[in-house]
């Protein structure tokens, strides 16, 4: 985090991008109240805060997506362009959003020069466009991306590079990265950090939005904390402790519980349900083909009241195994039984009926219906039970069924009829979990249930999953690539290349050993921690 000697643009006091006293209200919620923020050339500023703290709102305002109610955005000390003037905004700042904004059907070069293609006599100059793209890509060390390849053929990481290249091609010196690591694997994250450091070293001002505090400490020179729409802390990262940062994010009264979840809950984590002898889930010799990573001859048992983690990298088959168990993915050979009843491959409705609750990995794609309310989404799995003989379901019945779930998961909304699309990411995830728990399942299958949610929501979600096993005797299968999730598990199996390569049976699990097993740094074979 030392001062950068090669800073191309002198930090002479005029920030390349600055927000001054921003206020923004949505309905009755004050999303931002008097927030100021300044980026400096050759510095990386981390922006952290819980879901709903106002991070996305601030980034959207500073990217020209919508205007502030009060206050203003300045670039190089000048007023920001008019709201609709996309071109002018694009020339000042480049935002790489959490969700990919590349056009998959177009090539890398077309995406990099989208809507600003080099022209020759009024026509698109394809040759120059490709050459310029190649130049930009190699200049920043993105050599593994082919300028002529369609973006649909790229990995998530490469698509992100295309977006960054798009920003850099226009020579912009101001880059906003919104949760850039959310969809990346470990090695990719490493490379991203190297690139961000290189960008910063060359004088680019970077705003780095993240949930992961380690990342902030790793790449950011400064960190700004938003809480409830107010900027509560802006400080150099050097000399700031993680606990201080967490405390600033969650506020004084919930800090304790959040830190507890951060440090693990090893004391309570081992309280096994008495009826632990009976297997609830039996997976035998399961083999499957999937774009999420294949499975080869995987066998696994989960007993009642047991919390089993399945850890591994994205392509290791972790999600495939979980989806197969939830009935959401067919398999080629082997079998799966829930409490002795065979599972029908690829039929989530049947899996649900024999007692599997499912929390899919991508909540936006499969977790909820945006336009429908909290109560309706949470009870979608139990309409059969709520409906009378004629199939009529009264909204009152849905609300009554949803209320205890909402309380259990501390879902916060403006009423149970508020569309889930309007909630923050953490609350959306809680609704997704509520929907899985509504059926009072024998087995809950959760894939990366805390991905992209804030520290406090993460704690609440893990707590809810953990208490299911200890109090209700539910079996929990937790498939994840986030080691923090594993603190609630009684046992962890590690998948690599679609096979179980290690099993850890004694919590607390050693982080180093887990990572070694996940990344394949130790020879295959059962390892018992």
């Amino acid at each position, binding site marked *: 985090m030392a001062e950068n000697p090669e800073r191309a643009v002198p930090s002479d006091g005029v920030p390349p991008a600055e927000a001054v006293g921003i206020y923004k209200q949505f309905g009755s919620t004050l999303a931002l109240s008097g927030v100021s923020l300044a980026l400096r050339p050759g510095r990386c500023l981390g922006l952290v805060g819980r879901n709903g703290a106002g991070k996305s709102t601030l980034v959207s305002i500073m990217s020209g997506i919508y205007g502030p109610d009060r206050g203003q955005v300045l670039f190089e000390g000048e007023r920001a362009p008019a709201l609709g003037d996309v071109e002018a905004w694009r020339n000042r700042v480049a935002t790489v959003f959490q969700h990919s904004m590349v056009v998959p059907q177009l090539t890398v070069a077309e995406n990099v020069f989208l809507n600003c293609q080099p022209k020759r006599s009024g026509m698109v100059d394809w040759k120059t466009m490709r050459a310029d793209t190649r130049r930009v890509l190699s200049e920043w060390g993105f050599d593994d991306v082919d300028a002529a390849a369609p973006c649909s053929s790229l990995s998530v990481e490469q698509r992100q590079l295309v977006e960054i290249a798009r920003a850099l091609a226009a020579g912009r010196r101001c880059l906003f990265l919104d949760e850039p690591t959310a969809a990346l694997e470990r090695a990719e994250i490493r490379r991203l950090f190297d690139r961000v450091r290189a960008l910063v070293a060359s004088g680019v001002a970077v705003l780095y939005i993240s949930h992961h505090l380690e990342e902030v400490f790793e790449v950011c020179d400064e960190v700004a904390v938003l809480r409830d729409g107010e900027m509560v802390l802006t400080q150099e990262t050097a000399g700031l402790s993680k606990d201080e940062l967490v405390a600033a994010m969650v506020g004084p009264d919930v800090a304790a519980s959040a830190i507890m979840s951060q440090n693990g809950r090893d004391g309570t984590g081992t309280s096994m349900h008495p009826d632990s002898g009976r297997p609830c889930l039996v997976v035998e010799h399961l083999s499957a083909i999937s774009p999420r990573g294949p499975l080869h001859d995987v066998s696994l048992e989960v007993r009642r009241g047991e919390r089993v983690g399945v850890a591994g990298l994205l392509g290791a088959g972790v999600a495939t195994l979980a989806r197969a168990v939830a009935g*959401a993915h067919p398999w080629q050979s082997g079998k799966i039984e829930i409490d002795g009843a065979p599972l029908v491959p690829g039929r*989530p409705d049947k899996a649900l009926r024999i007692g599997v609750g499912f929390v899919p990995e991508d909540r936006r794609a499969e977790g909820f219906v945006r*336009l429908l309310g909290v109560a309706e989404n949470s009870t*979608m799995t139990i309409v059969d039970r709520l409906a009378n003989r004629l199939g009529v379901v009264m*909204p009152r019945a849905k609300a009554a069924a949803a209320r205890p779930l909402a309380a259990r998961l501390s879902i916060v*909304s403006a009423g*149970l009829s508020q569309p889930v699309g309007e909630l923050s990411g953490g609350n959306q995830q809680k609704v997704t979990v509520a929907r899985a728990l509504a059926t009072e399942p024998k087995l809950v299958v959760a894939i990366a249930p805390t991905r992209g949610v804030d520290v406090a929501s993460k704690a609440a979600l893990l707590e809810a999953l953990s208490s299911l096993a200890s109090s209700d005797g539910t079996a929990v299968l937790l498939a994840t690539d986030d080691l923090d999730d594993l603190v609630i598990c009684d046992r962890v199996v590690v998948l690599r290349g679609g096979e179980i390569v290690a099993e850890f049976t004694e919590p607390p699990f050693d982080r180093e050993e887990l990572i070694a097993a996940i990344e394949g740094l130790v020879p295959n074979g059962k390892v018992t921690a």
Partner: protein
Amino acid sequence: MTQLSSEKDARATTARPPGAEASGRAAADAVLQQTSRQARAVSLVREAALLPVVVLLIIVGALVSNVFLTVSNFSGIGLQASALGVVVVGESLIIMIGGMDLSLEGTYGLAPMVAAWLIVPVAAFGSGADLNPYIGILILILVGALVGVFNGLLIVKGGLNAFIVTLGMTIVLAGLQNGIVKAQTLFSLPSAFSYLGSAYWGQVPVSLVVTVIIFVGVGLFLRYHRGGRAIYAVGGNAEAARAAGINVDRVKIGVYVAGSVLAAIGGLMEAGRVSAVTGQQGYQEGIIFTVFAAAVIGGVSLAGGKGNMVGAATGVVLLSLVQNILDLANVSNYWILAIYGGVILIGLAVSRMIGGKTSQG
């Protein structure tokens, strides 16, 4: 477990000792309930937003012609709007699951054609089967259901594009309809067959009563039946619905079938109204355009997952009033289509402005 995590609540909790939790939560609940009541009021306003336009049209109609504000004119409008309205209900359901069906137009013509062909005598260009008219009505419904099953299977199970499938189907159905009677017009329909489209209870057309019942019934079904809620879920996010255990394919195919059956019933009303079935009923008038326009003006989102029967009914009423006013105003026949189309485009723009953008992010 009791950490409240909204911005509002978190702010409140910081200023409060932990003991005050319960009362604080009650207060927060009260606030939230009030907000949700406000939200409900807002959505009601949005649903009724086209009402001023209806009132405006009635005023315009009254100024244009002194016949407009008569009972007989209104019962005429009701008669005309009924057939359209029933088809709009069907199309709205299909649009709400994120689909589309252009071939409702074809079903609207073919179903009554096949039924009438089996009923009426050879002298009226019938087949000679001389079936009982009630059996004919059953056959009409069956034809509708068959077309719906066929469309549904091709689109849902076959994974084909709904637009192309139903466009092709429209042409096939119109061709069959015309081919069966070799472009003749079937007439002398038995009274049981034409009752629905031509009879009156007092001044009120029977078809209008039936249409209103269908609107109300489907509206209640959408709001209170799990099948109706499944339609919103499937249209809003099919994958989420699937993961929640809803049999998405069955819902979709079911809606295609229901839509086609409703179109067949609409066709029966039209056949009764004009006491004949032409070789081009439906196809000739291009009713599918009006059907889509009424649904979309009524706030049914072509993206799926959004819309309701109050809106769809408003769309039907609006377009029927416009049609009636144009007729009464003695607009030259040569220009009536251009004006009608223009009014529809304006209506779409207005309803878009009133409806506002769908909430994003």
